[in-house]
C-alpha cells in the first residue's frame, strides 16, 4: 500500500478544509467499511481524515421532542440507548441487525448513511421518522431531509468538502406505530435482501397516517408512495393490505445480485409488507408475526 498521510482534525471546519485541499482524502469514522476498501485497494486515498478527534460528533441529545444523533454515534449505542429503544424502537431494532457485536461497536451512524449502500440498515427507519441530516463545511452548513440525501449506490448529495455531522429525528406523534422487518439469508453478519419499515396510525379501523420505506430494492432507499396512497384514509382490511403490498412490490426497482434475484426481492417486499400490515390489523384473524 502506498504512503497515506493521517490527519486528525479537532473541529469540523478543519475536516472540511482538508477535504477541499486534498480531493483524494477519505474520511475515517468507525473504519469498518473504509479499512476493507483500503485492504482490497478499492480506494487509494492520499490522506485519511480521522473524525474521532471532533468530540461533539459522538453525542446523543434528546430535548424538546427532538433526537440529535452525532454522526460518530456507534450502531451499538443506537441499539442500546434507552431513549432510542423507548421512543424510536424501529431504529434500535434496525441497529441490532447490522453486522455483529464487534462491527456495531465500531460502525457509526454517519458512516452507514454516508457510504450510501442501497441496503444501508439505518436509512429506512430514519427516513420513515422524517430525519434530517446536517451537512457542515468550511463555507457553512445546511440541513436537508434524509430522504433527499441518497442519489445512487454509494452516492449522496454531499458536495466536496461537506461532512455529515448530525442526524436530527423528531419524536413520533402519539399513537404512531412502527414496524421494522428485514429478510436476509442469515440471521447475523449478512446484508439485507429486503428491508421494510412501516409507520402507521389507525383511528378505529381507518388508516389516518402511513409511511412506507423500502431498503435494498432500489439504487437508494425509497418511499413506496403508491402503497401509502392506497392505504391512507381507508379501512385496514385484507383486500387493502393485499393491494398495498402488491403496489410496493411493483413500485420498487430491485436488481439481481449474489444475494437474491430481482424477482425474489419483489416477492419478499410483498411478503414483508403483508406481515407488517397484518400486525396492525387487530380485528382480523390473520395476525402474523
Amino acid at each position, binding site marked *: 500500500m502506498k504512503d497515506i498521510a493521517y490527519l486528525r482534525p479537532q473541529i469540523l471546519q478543519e475536516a472540511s478544509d482538508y477535504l477541499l485541499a486534498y480531493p483524494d482524502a477519505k474520511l475515517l469514522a468507525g473504519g469498518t467499511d473504509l479499512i476493507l476498501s483500503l485492504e482490497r485497494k478499492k480506494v487509494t486515498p492520499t490522506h485519511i481524515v480521522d473524525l474521532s478527534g471532533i468530540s461533539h460528533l459522538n453525542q446523543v441529545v434528546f430535548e424538546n421532542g427532538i433526537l440529535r444523533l452525532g454522526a460518530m454515534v456507534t450502531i451499538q449505542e443506537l441499539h442500546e440507548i434507552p431513549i432510542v429503544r423507548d421512543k424510536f424502537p424501529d431504529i434500535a431494532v434496525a441497529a441490532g441487525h447490522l453486522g455483529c457485536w464487534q462491527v456495531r*461497536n*465500531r460502525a457509526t451512524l454517519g458512516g452507514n448513511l454516508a457510504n450510501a449502500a442501497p441496503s444501508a440498515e439505518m436509512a429506512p427507519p430514519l427516513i420513515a421518522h422524517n430525519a434530517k441530516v446536517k451537512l457542515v463545511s468550511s463555507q457553512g452548513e445546511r440541513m436537508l431531509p434524509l430522504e433527499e440525501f441518497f442519489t445512487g449506490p454509494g452516492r449522496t448529495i454531499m458536495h466536496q468538502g461537506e461532512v455529515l455531522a448530525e442526524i436530527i429525528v423528531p419524536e413520533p406523534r402519539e399513537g404512531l406505530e412502527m414496524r421494522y422487518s428485514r429478510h436476509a439469508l442469515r440471521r447475523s453478519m449478512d446484508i439485507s435482501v429486503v428491508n421494510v419499515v412501516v409507520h402507521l396510525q389507525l383511528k378505529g379501523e381507518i388508516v389516518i397516517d402511513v409511511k412506507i420505506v423500502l431498503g435494498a430494492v432500489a439504487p437508494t432507499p425509497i418511499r413506496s408512495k403508491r402503497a401509502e396512497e392506497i392505504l391512507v384514509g381507508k379501512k385496514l382490511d385484507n383486500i387493502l393490505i393485499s393491494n398495498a403490498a402488491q403496489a410496493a412490490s411493483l413500485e420498487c426497482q430491485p436488481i439481481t445480485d449474489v444475494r437474491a434475484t430481482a424477482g425474489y426481492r419483489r416477492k419478499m417486499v410483498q411478503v414483508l409488507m403483508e406481515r407488517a400490515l397484518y400486525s396492525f390489523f387487530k380485528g382480523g384473524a390473520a395476525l402474523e408475526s
Partner: protein
Amino acid sequence: MKVNIKIMVNGDPYFVQVSPFRTLLDVLREDIGLTGTKKGCGEGECGACTVLMDGKPVNSCLFLAVQAEGKEITTIEGLAAGNLHPVQEAFVAKGAIQCGYCSPGFILTAWALLKTNPHPTEEEITTAISGNICRCTGYQKIVEAILDAAQRLQGGVGNV
C-alpha cells in the same frame, strides 16, 4: 508518513511508530509481539482477531492502530493474571476448544458479554457470539462453556 502513538494494551503503555493504514491486529502481533490475537479472514467476518476496546469487543483487523490512541485494549494475554481466567477454565472444562484458533476471540467476546450481562440466556449468548466463527463446529460446547463461565464468575460451580 508514520505516526507516533501510545497504546494501552493490557494495562501497559506501548509507544509505537505506525503507518496510518496499519491495523491494530498487525501492530499487536508484529510490533508488540502479542500473538494471542489471531488473524483469520482479515475482513471482519470471523472474529478471530477480537480484542476488547474499553471493554467492548471489536475486530482488530477493521481497526487502524492510530484509532487505538487513548483507548484501553485488552487481548487474550491480558485476561488471566497468573492462573487461567474463569472463562478460560470453563472453555477447557466443557471441551469448547478444538483447534483453538478461534478461542481467544470467543473468550474475549464471552467475557465482554458476562461483564454486562452476568446471567445471559442461550439466545443472548448466540446473539453475542454471532460475529465469531468456529470452523471445528463447536458452537454447542462454546455456548455451554459460556453458561458455565457465568456460574463460575458468580462463585458457583467448580466441578473441575
